[in-house]
């Protein structure tokens, strides 16, 4: 059977063994020095036909999208379905010229194969998903890690070349599939070592350990005290806002002091930071306020009998208003749960109301490497300089990107601002993402562009293999003229 220099292609169930320099039964995947690569036919239209991309979608015409044109008052050709030119020393598949406000512009359209790429996921939840730097898994394979959390959100960093190509075949495949699904806005189940299982879908609420997250917290526990102290004053004697980060206590908090809230003799567990602010009242978890507690009283010690009094009214509430309980002290100063009075339910509802909907969001991040740039110009570094100098604008499926400062063209894009199903993959494994470079034709010539490959927009508009999409109103028009000044923002962060 296979000799050691043949590789097995897993692009389809035929599972061909492919010798170096040869292709499989499909003539589409080949063995390039031991690497499985997608071989591109020489002719653009051939490629369009054989890939089935940039043809008019057959089923669900109005829902799915795989074509190549974003239409508006003018037209912009996106790279989706344009194909790519592996190994990229050839001109990009489509180099389209158009006239914008009397200026000849050119858009170089290609699909890039990104080995150096990943997805940064922001999950709006205070629930503890897992310790920072712990491994994130999909299908049991490591695909990323937990990174620095942000205000009200947990952050995951997924993908990257180490998981895509540096580990086992299964690890690479699971990583590629995870990135592809996230980028194409499909749900993905992720499990964090020593942490939670979370279902993430760009633009949709996260589902943490089976519970759908509804709202972000309004602020930390201390901030919540500050925001609502006035509304509580006079209606309740003590309020504890339970929060995994900073739990707030009304009577001790600066806001309570200013209002003249008397001491209550409450004693909190955890470590006191400044008056009325406590760290680590419990362990992180997925219950009250991102802690592990189900019973809020478990974070309280006995009230000080010299200060507290029977019938003392105590409200405990989480930073999202999802958890709350109302207590009154009995004769022995033990809290006894009572029904939440109407006068307080309004403030709990307001906490909820002030919490924004919790979402998972995904930014695709990739680096346009040397070979991709070579499809744009014969002198690749000039493209980088041109992007730096804001002469060339970069878009991703027509969506604005943020180009990271420093060397190279490393960019981020919000996948929900791109057309659906804009991403593909190759079994290398690596992600295929659309990327468009738009610049004045004069500048394109200057940076060594493939001038003899420039074709007018009508070339695409007269063909039939295209799909018209309305431009998203929230996105700046990709053909808005790039500015010549370095200080101008070249993209929309």
């Amino acid at each position, binding site marked *: *059977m*296979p*000799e050691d220099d*043949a590789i097995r292609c897993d*692009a*389809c*169930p*035929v*599972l*061909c*063994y*492919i*010798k170096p320099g*040869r292709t*499989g*039964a*499909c*003539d589409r995947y080949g063995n390039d020095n031991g690497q499985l690569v997608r071989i591109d036919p020489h002719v653009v*239209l051939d490629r*369009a*036909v*054989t*890939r*089935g*991309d940039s*043809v*008019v*979608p*057959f*089923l669900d015409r109005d829902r799915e999208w*795989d074509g190549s044109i974003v239409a508006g008052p003018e037209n912009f050709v996106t790279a989706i379905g344009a194909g790519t030119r592996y190994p990229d020393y050839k001109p990009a598949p489509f180099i389209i010229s158009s006239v914008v406000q009397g200026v000849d512009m050119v858009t170089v359209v290609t699909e890039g194969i990104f080995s150096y790429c990943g997805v940064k996921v922001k999950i709006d939840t205070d629930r503890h998903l897992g310790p920072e730097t712990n491994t994130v898994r999909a299908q049991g394979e490591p695909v990323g890690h937990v990174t620095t959390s942000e205000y009200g959100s947990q952050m995951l960093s997924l993908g990257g070349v180490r998981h895509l190509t540096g580990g086992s075949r299964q690890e690479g495949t699971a990583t590629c*599939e995870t990135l*592809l*699904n996230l980028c*194409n806005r499909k749900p993905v189940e992720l499990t964090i070592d020593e942490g939670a299982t979370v279902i993430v879908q760009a633009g949709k609420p996260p589902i943490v350990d089976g519970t759908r997250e509804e709202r972000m917290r309004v602020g930390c526990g201390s901030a919540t005290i500050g925001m609502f102290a006035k509304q509580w004053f006079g209606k309740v004697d003590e309020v504890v806002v339970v929060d995994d980060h900073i739990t707030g206590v009304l009577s001790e908090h600066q806001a309570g002091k200013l209002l003249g809230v008397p001491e209550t003799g409450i004693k909190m567990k955890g470590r006191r930071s400044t008056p009325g602010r406590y760290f680590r009242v419990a362990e992180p978890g997925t219950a009250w306020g991102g802690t592990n507690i189900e019973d809020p009283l478990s974070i309280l010690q006995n009230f000080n009998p010299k200060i507290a009094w029977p019938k003392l009214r105590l409200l405990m509430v989480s930073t999202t208003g999802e958890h709350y309980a109302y207590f009154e002290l009995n004769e022995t100063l033990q809290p006894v749960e009572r029904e939440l009075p109407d006068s307080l339910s309004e403030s709990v509802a307001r906490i909820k109301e002030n919490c924004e909907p919790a979402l998972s969001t995904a930014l695709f991040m990739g680096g346009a490497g040397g070979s991709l740039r070579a499809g744009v110009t014969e002198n690749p570094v000039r493209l980088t300089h041109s992007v730096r100098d804001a002469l060339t604008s970069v878009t991703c499926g027509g969506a604005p990107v943020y180009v990271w400062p420093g060397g190279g063209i490393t960019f981020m894009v919000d996948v929900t601002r791109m057309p659906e*199903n804009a991403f*593909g*993959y190759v079994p290398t494994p690596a992600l295929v993402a659309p990327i468009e470079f738009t610049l004045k034709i004069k500048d394109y010539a200057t940076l060594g562009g493939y001038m003899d490959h420039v074709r007018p927009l009508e070339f695409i508009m007269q*063909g*039939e*293999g295209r799909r018209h999409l309305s431009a998203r109103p929230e996105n700046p028009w990709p053909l808005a003229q790039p500015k010549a000044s370095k200080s101008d923002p070249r993209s929309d962060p």
Partner: protein
Amino acid sequence: MRQRAQIGFLPDGRRLHLHDGPIDLIVEAFGSPSEIAAAYRVAAERFVTVLDELCGELPLLRQPARKDGPFPVRVIARRMFEAVAPYCERTFITPMAAVAGAVAEEILGTMTSAANLSRAYVNNGGDVALHLSPGEHFVAGMVERPDCPSLFGTAVLDSMQPVRGIATSGWRGRSFSLGIADAVTVLADRAAMADAAATIIANAVDLPGHPGVVRVPACDLAPDSDLGDRLVTQEVGELSSAEITAALDAGVFLAQSLLSEGFIGSAALHLRGNTRIVGATAEQCFVAASKPAQSRSLIHA
């Protein structure tokens, strides 16, 4: 992952393109718009499971066919087996020789059983299954060398003839060949039959031991080829006109035998610009390229 099979229209918006792994189909149906839509819908639904079905029995389908079995189970695999079974005692052949035609037949059959179509074809990389209702006809364009398509002639196929399948085989094509034919095009009642027959006729167009023919064990090129260590043609050097005649004679001899046994309707054999035609209906079928096509033609490579 994205659904593996790709289903879409070609840029003309008329022909359906179905692609999955090594299977690449161009489909066109003729009839009322609603019937065409119904046909395309069932074709697409049927298509998505075809490759998985075939791969489920791939080891068996790569073995030389034997009349005493074992027999494949799934419908397309059985059709492949049935198409090659008549030849398994006289020559080496595996059911894979008929895979393209058998898939084309299956998709065509799915469409014609669900919709009322005047005409339809399923072109699987040059192996074509046809549907013709009474009074209809197709004009098929033929190419001499699959690697540099240019029409050398056309074949008129009308509903009065039993031909519903076209297939081409040759060493320049996508599959390996044991022979040196540039292309052998066969018309038969069904696409799978045409596919199997074209394969063995192309294998028979040969000059065994000729020093100008470069042959390599198939498994050296594709380790899992159904041809195993059999020598497949990779290059054909200079041939004298006598050698061309001798090679074609060998193919024509087999083609005439298949014709008399009723397995094929006609065959056109090409080698170095020489064409030999076999079949009673050949005069009606194969028409010179200079004659303008009477109706929409399908390019057949």
